[in-house]
């Protein structure tokens, strides 16, 4: 079975009471980028994944996991 990437972005963002737009502002991307990553439509680049982890102050491997 092929591996897939899951993420806890929505949960971590909600834990910090941030809206998608606020997180987008912190990371310097558009709201649709946050939306597509949360919905699993878009797999972010390594740079974006690291920037998201830094903005949410969590380890990147806590934010993104391989499953399957």
């Amino acid at each position: 079975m092929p591996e897939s990437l899951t993420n806890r972005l929505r949960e971590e963002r909600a834990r910090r009471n941030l809206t998608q737009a606020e997180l987008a502002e912190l990371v310097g991307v558009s709201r649709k980028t946050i939306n597509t990553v949360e919905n699993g439509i878009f797999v972010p680049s390594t740079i974006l994944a690291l920037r998201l982890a830094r903005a949410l102050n969590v380890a990147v491997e806590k934010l993104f996991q391989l499953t399957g």
Partner: protein
Amino acid sequence: MPSNVEVADKASRKRAIAVAIAAIVFLMIQVVTRPVFNPLPETAHLSKVIMWAINAGALLLLLMTGGGLMQRKEIRTLIHDEVSRNNSRSAIVFGYWIAMAIAIAVYVAAGIKPVSAREAVYLIVTPSVGIALLSFSWLELRAHSDA
């Protein structure tokens, strides 16, 4: 005052809709005017042929660059960020495969009814540009919609 992200969000939605409208208008104009297949003398429909080339080129440029030239640089960067660039690439790849399929069909059909180089290019480019733009628009609108 709205933040850059909010401004970019609105502009990006508008762009997705505008791209779909541009693609539909482009395809509909072709159905109505048929610039390449017009039986008029060459000089009479040359302007239509040139307009088609300008139109198709401009739409391809829009697909490649993401447009937004009227926006500030920071807003343009947000509008055409990682997701949009990815959507643009996917749409271009989709358009490429449409072009390849039509090119093969034209190659086979040319044995039955000869087509000129201009007609062949027109038949290949028109639908592939239109479909690539519609595909980009759909991917962008999907990215905006909440799950």
